[in-house]
């Protein structure tokens, strides 16, 4: 005989299951339910296999690539695909339920199955809409970590509701901790509840960031930092609520955590330091996702800012994980603190026989003609120096709206200067080379080195080759370097 004992809840569930499995009405429904589940799953898969094999509707993301220029259509296809299995399930379950009811059979479980399919349908639609714009892997991750377990738990609770008194089961003591009895329900909330809450918050955060960055002019770095703060606040609220459900004895917890805090403080000093630094960075907003910073001479974009570390993605697509303390206690260069405009320059060495104002005018024209070089502040060409050997050095100062575009802009400008000087008949300074060969050493040179001079040192075959041989920001610098 089983009564209110808390230790044998599993036995009660098994006993109840045996009671119900002895009833014809229950067994009939379970068979019908299993058949509906299997058939609806296979019918859905078969349907899409046929459609896909005929080159029909393609997924926008995920298994097959998105069709170019068909965003709304692809989303619609995604929705239809997501809705197909639950819809087939609803139809099938309804038909079977109707037939069974007509035959005078019990159909309550099939009614519940239809309810589950409806929940699944709505959930699939919502998840598809929410994750439609995200990276496919991100979307799959949220489905795997949040949606599928959530549906599994809902179904599990529905099944359990028939097999046990869920309310009493939730109130049963699982074990004691810190002198307080911990109920199954409280443990459920404090573990899975916090898990789902955190993942739900993360999902909403990802979706909102994605939406903000794509559909608004709002500075997404600021938006992301704000959302990050909101996210942590909500997660903290959830954790506080979840842990509060455990109803631990506050004095015991305080005594134990107080004793542990010294050891934990030493052991986790760095972690706590990073945590506090991260919190200050977030609150001060001195660093935000999307900021462009320079670390150890490498420029990169701040990808993620968490309470422990900051992830910076370099131009070479490398991810650098930097502990927050480094940003908080040291100095770093940011290109996006209050203003994203950055100045850069190109040094040009021209023959002194060229008229200085003419050269400057050409350089101005080049800078002004590039659409990505800002008009304000205006580009300016300075005469930097006058050397012997008929060389005048010019520095063309320009402004870019994005620090990350500078290498590309610099390349563009060098190329345009080369063309413009050529068209304006402005002579650049070319290298003068004087080579001395030691006859005795020449005997040991390889065959190529011993070849006639004209064959070893060839003039550049094209403009591109010349540019490629130059330092990126010094046009004509080779002469200076080589002659020195």
């Amino acid at each position: 005989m089983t009564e209110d004992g808390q230790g044998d809840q599993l036995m009660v569930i098994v006993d109840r299951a045996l009671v119900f499995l002895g009833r014809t009405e229950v067994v009939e429904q379970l068979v019908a339910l299993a058949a509906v589940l299997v058939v609806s799953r296979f019918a859905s898969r078969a349907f899409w296999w046929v459609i896909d094999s005929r080159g029909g509707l393609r997924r926008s993301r995920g298994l097959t690539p998105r069709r170019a220029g068909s965003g709304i259509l692809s989303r619609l296809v995604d929705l239809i695909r997501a809705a197909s299995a639950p819809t087939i399930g609803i139809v099938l379950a309804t038909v079977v339920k109707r037939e069974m009811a007509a035959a005078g059979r019990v159909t309550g479980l099939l009614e519940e199955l239809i309810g589950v399919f409806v929940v699944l349908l709505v959930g699939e639609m919502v998840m598809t809409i929410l994750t439609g714009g995200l990276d496919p892997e991100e979307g799959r991750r949220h489905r795997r970590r949040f949606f599928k377990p959530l549906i599994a738990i809902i179904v599990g609770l529905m099944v359990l509701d028939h097999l046990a008194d869920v309310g009493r089961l939730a109130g049963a003591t699982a074990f004691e901790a810190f002198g307080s009895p911990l109920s199954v329900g409280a443990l459920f909330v404090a573990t899975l509840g916090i898990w789902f809450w955190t993942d739900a918050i993360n999902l909403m955060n990802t979706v909102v960031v994605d939406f903000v960055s794509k559909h608004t002019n709002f500075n997404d770095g600021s938006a992301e930092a704000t959302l990050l703060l909101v996210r942590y606040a909500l997660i903290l609220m959830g954790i506080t609520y979840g842990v509060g459900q455990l109803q631990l004895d506050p004095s015991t917890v305080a005594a134990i955590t107080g004793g542990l805090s010294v050891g934990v403080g030493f052991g986790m000093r760095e972690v706590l330091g990073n945590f506090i630094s991260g919190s200050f960075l977030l609150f001060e907003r001195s660093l935000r996702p999307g900021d462009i910073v320079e670390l150890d001479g490498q420029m990169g974009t701040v990808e993620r800012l968490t309470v422990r570390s900051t992830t910076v993605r370099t131009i070479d697509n490398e991810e650098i994980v930097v502990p927050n303390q480094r940003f908080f206690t040291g100095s770093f260069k940011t290109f996006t603190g209050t203003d994203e405009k950055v100045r850069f320059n190109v040094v040009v060495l021209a023959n002194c026989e060229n008229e200085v104002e003419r050269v400057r005018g050409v350089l101005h024209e080049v800078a002004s003609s590039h659409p990505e070089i800002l008009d304000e502040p205006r580009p300016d060409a300075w005469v930097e120096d006058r050397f012997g050997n008929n060389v005048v050095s010019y520095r063309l100062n320009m402004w870019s709206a994005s620090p990350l575009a500078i290498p590309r802009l610099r390349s563009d400008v060098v190329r345009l200067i080369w063309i413009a000087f050529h068209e304006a008949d402005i002579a650049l300074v070319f290298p003068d080379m004087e080579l001395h060969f030691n006859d005795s050493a020449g005997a040991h040179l390889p065959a190529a080195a011993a070849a006639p001079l004209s064959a070893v040192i060839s003039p550049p075959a094209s403009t591109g080759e010349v540019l490629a041989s130059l330092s990126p920001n010094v046009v004509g610098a080779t002469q200076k370097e080589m002659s020195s």
Partner: protein
Amino acid sequence: MRRLLAVSIVAASFAVALASCELTSQRILVWHDWPDPEAQVLIELLEEYSELNPNLRLIIEYVPSSELESRFAAEVESGFGPDVVVGVDADRLADLVAADSVRPITVDQSVGHGFDQLEVRAMQVMAIEGEQHGVPLAGFTDVLYFREGIEPPESLDSVIELAEAGYSTGIPVDFVGAYWGVDAFDGTVFGADDALAPDEGFVGWMNWILEARPQPNVILGGDYETLRESFARGRIDLFVGSSRELGKFRSELGVSEAASGPESGEGAATFGLTTLPGGTNLAPGGFLEIEGMVANRHTDNMAESLALMEYLTNVPSQGRIARSGLGRIPINDSVAIDPTISPVEAALLRQQRRSVVLPRVFEENLAGLTDLGDEIYLQVARGLLEPAEAGAVLRARYDSIAGEIDD
């Protein structure tokens, strides 16, 4: 892989639990709505029954009274639900029968007393359209509670005399709760065809209410809970209320061991209960409320379920329930209680045997009638309606409602 692992763990847990179960045992799932500590006597009886039947495994679960019938009906709809429900109110049986949730009781299947010993009226309450759909377990009816040191009144005149002597009496005057007053004047409100037909007894009762109204110590109230609370807090000395209150009063006021007057000494009562005071009829009865048991429509343990119901309604079990001091009155006619040993239980039994069963037609078709009756009572108590007119007004309203239903 992880999914497979999870399924394997669940399956293994279930298999281990299954292996530890006695698969050969017969299992009966029982729901009841008796809260603690009332449930103690029921649990003990069920445990004893389980010991007497080693091949039977009883799974007993408590469901709050407010959810009992609705949850049962919802579970049965899916083929689930308990085999037996203990504590179904008779006035909710019709709904369960309409929802096709309960299996009719076939007395031929019984293996014991065959329910022959049960009070016929109680059995009838658990039958619908001639078919037995449940078995009564216990009854409740109205009784008179009185405070320690007061000689309880035997007649309504004595109530007024006590009031004049300074003792206050709380009498709920609503249609159902004050029906005993009609019986106290040898009257009825039900005609031969169970139609509402207040007679001279009803008028006599209304006259008494009018006579008692100026007396400040006779409190004729429409709010049952307020009067109950007043008695529990010692603001009034006598109170006409349901026997359901006995258990609560015992925990709130102290142990009662007296029926005709509180005893003194160790375990002395601070209150007592007795039968209701009479008018021209000195043995009036109120309505009888029945708490019963039903079987799930889908149970495959009908014989075992019936046997369990028989066990709970046999003489020893009924005696145990009666003596539990919770105000539950046995419905087994063979139960005899010695008034010198158990005066309270004996008084309850006496009162129950005088009680009246509310015709089912009123429960099923005229739920609004009680509201109507309540209004008439209050109007008489406030002097807004003459007693002689009250019966006629009630009858006219009833005819009007019945006419609407017939249409």
